[in-house]
């Protein structure tokens, strides 16, 4: 601790190898990128509700810019907010301290991984400065549109002209981000396997540590082919190879397979750590053991493996073999079973619980509820290849995947921040502001996306700048109203986030000082001082039990830390 105060902020921010500092860097960077992602969505949603002219804080919006903003919103939210938030921030901050050790297995690799990530952010954003403008072909980067606006590589353009395009920068940024997260993942897994405290067997690990590791593994096994695909696509753009050029033997659908072979597991990569956070919080604030610990881990592994073989449900109508589509439909619908088991186990933790509605608990409940009731269940609709014929690429899909991603990344992320804030800052967040923030976020989130489900069923297709061409189908008064409700809710949602920012930064300096274990929780991080000093523990704990012995019948207290005999 003492060492830290002396080193200057900048030095600490940029060069520290401490896992908590790196976690904090990831957090600030993710928040910075979220500001971009959020601003973009504000601009294009405003356009959809009130037209492209005179958008406050932006000006007039053109069709090309609309595509660019949608594309970059999607990519930023997934790769530059979601991935760092649930994997890098949680993994870095939580893993070493929850397994009772001093730091990551490879601190330098950790630092390099952050720098690579930062570089990828810069590369992505500089795409906006290119002469051709930022990339606007959808975050899925389907070729041939991602090769050039006209779908082919013009043999007469020079390498240099091809290089300085939004497309190239977008792809390079994505590849860098993948590499950064791969390095992080190696670190998490090795750390977890090798540096666990004495007595901490794998079956005594906190569920969130399990989830982050499974997510890292899943990421690692699914992203490889897409990294290869990214190189291929880059070559198509830069030197004019024909990997995805149908007129030269290439196959545009190959990219879709490579992309979704990664893309589907990717949504679980974003979901699992967040489910882990919710598990910790449920157990702590129900004062009950985590129900079905081994079962949940088993089911997650099953779901993880299944997630590698369902990718083509994103391609039911993209021209794949219709016979194969039946199998993918079957597997997709079946994957709901392990998730149902997990959700039921989580509800088993709440059952008969001594539930305390703290702010993290509210976010956790909100996360699980919106994920299950709207995200998961509409997954059954879309898993059916027949209904997907109609729903594919409409706002029904948009609403569905936002109901999975927004809870995972944003609600789960906030739950984690509220829960561990006292640990990492040594101070408490303001409770009342926290509650206002929760209700604002939760209500406005729902009032954005419920209308979008309905618009999707009405046939409103996605990535469209202007619906006025479909006057009969999509421009009736109630369509316009639904769009406006969504947009106004979004504006309120964004305003609500300023409450959080205020609370977050003010409490860093002025919050009430937090004790060591404010939530009376069992896991090891609460045994370190708040905030933990360099090396985390003065004396390293030995572990005697699993982390969820709340209300143990043989004890007087209602909690029993892992390191007590």
């Amino acid at each position: 601790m003492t060492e830290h105060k002396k080193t200057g902020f900048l030095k600490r921010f940029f060069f520290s190898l401490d896992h908590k500092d790196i976690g904090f860097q990831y957090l600030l960077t993710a928040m910075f990128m979220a500001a971009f992602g959020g601003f973009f969505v504000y601009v294009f949603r405003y356009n959809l509700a009130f037209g492209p002219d005179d958008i406050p804080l932006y000006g007039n919006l053109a069709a090309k810019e609309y595509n660019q903003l949608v594309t970059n919103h999607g990519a930023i939210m997934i790769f530059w907010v979601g991935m760092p938030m649930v994997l890098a921030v949680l993994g870095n901050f939580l893993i070493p301290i929850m397994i009772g050790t001093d730091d990551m297995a490879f601190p330098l690799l950790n630092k390099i991984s952050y720098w690579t990530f930062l570089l990828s952010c810069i590369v992505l954003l500089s795409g906006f400065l290119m002469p051709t403008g930022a990339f606007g072909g959808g975050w899925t980067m389907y070729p041939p549109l991602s090769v050039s606006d006209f779908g082919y590589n013009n043999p007469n353009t020079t390498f240099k002209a091809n290089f300085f395009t939004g497309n190239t920068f977008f792809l390079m940024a994505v590849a860098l981000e993948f590499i950064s997260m791969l390095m992080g993942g190696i670190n998490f897994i090795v750390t977890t396997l090798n540096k666990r405290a004495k007595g901490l067997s794998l079956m005594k690990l906190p569920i969130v540590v399990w989830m982050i590791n499974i997510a890292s593994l899943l990421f690692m096994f699914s992203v490889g082919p897409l990294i290869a695909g990214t190189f291929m696509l880059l070559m198509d753009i830069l030197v004019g190879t024909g990997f995805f050029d149908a007129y030269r033997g290439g196959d545009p659908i190959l990219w879709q397979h490579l992309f979704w072979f990664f893309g589907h597991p990717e949504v679980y990569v974003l979901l699992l750590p967040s489910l882990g956070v919710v598990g910790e919080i449920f157990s702590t604030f129900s004062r009950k053991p985590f129900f079905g610990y081994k079962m949940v881990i088993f089911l997650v592994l099953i779901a993880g493996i299944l997630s590698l073989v369902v990718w083509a449900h994103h391609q039911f109508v993209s021209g794949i073999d219709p016979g194969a589509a039946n199998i993918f439909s079957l597997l997709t619908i079946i994957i709901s079973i392990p998730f149902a088991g997990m959700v039921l186990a989580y509800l088993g933790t709440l059952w008969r619980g001594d539930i305390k509605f703290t702010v993290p608990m509210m976010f956790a409940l909100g996360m699980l509820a919106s994920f299950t009731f709207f995200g998961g269940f509409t997954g059954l609709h879309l898993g059916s290849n027949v209904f997907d014929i109609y729903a594919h690429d409409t706002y029904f899909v948009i609403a569905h995947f936002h109901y999975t991603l927004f809870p995972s990344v944003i609600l789960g992320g906030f739950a984690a921040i509220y829960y561990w804030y006292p640990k990492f800052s040594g101070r408490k967040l303001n409770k009342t502001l926290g509650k206002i923030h929760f209700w604002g976020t939760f209500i406005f989130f729902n009032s954005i996306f419920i209308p979008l489900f309905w618009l999707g069923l009405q046939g409103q297709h996605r990535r469209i700048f202007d619906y006025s061409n479909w006057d009969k189908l999509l421009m009736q008064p109630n369509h316009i109203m639904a769009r406006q409700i969504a947009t106004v809710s979004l504006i309120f949602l964004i305003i609500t986030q300023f409450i959080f920012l205020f609370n977050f930064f003010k409490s860093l300096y002025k919050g009430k000082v937090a004790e060591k274990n404010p939530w009376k929780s069992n896991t090891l991080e609460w045994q370190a001082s708040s905030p933990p000093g360099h090396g985390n523990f003065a004396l390293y704990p030995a572990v005697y039990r699993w982390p969820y012995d709340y209300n143990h019948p043989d004890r007087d207290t209602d909690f029993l830390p892992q390191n007590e005999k």
Partner: protein
Amino acid sequence: MNTSINKKPTLRDIPQARLGVWILIAGEFVIFGGLIVAYLLYRFRYPEWAEMASHTNIVLGATNTFVLLTSSYFVVKAHDAAIKKDKNKITLYIGLTILSALIFLVVKITEYSQKIHHGFTFSGKELVEQGKHIESTYWGFYFLMTGLHAFHVIVGAIVLFIVMMGARKGKNYQRIEVAGLYWHMVDLIWIFLFPLLYIAN
């Protein structure tokens, strides 16, 4: 009640660096695996590619296979020397490995210039002009796969060099094993690429 007293964090018996490199190797295999699967899909679809593959230089390819295989042997020897902390032998064998890497790269460059000379370029522009559209994409795979592999050879050689310099100062002998593992991977990937790209049919 609190009975947790350890002055230092616990370490399990897993050799950390080796585990890390194993995971890295698994990751690399998935990357190359993706490329290879994509290549095979096209290869089976287009019989024309067999003819293109016959334009590769099997003699040079086989030479390179041989060079890499011997270099793997040198790395094993270097590891033995590292266990004995024999600085001279380490320098010798890693030096030989790096030399093999250089030979590999020189052969590669010769091959590339031959290909380019015959009009088989990355983008296959000349083939396209002759109307051989589908054939041109073969060379995209050829250059991308071998190029990516050659990049790994370069990285591997640099890593070996750094490790060797460390060992000469008497530091971090265990790193030789880890770098060696990585080198074996580079070797193994070539063993996959060679028959796939060079041997027609």
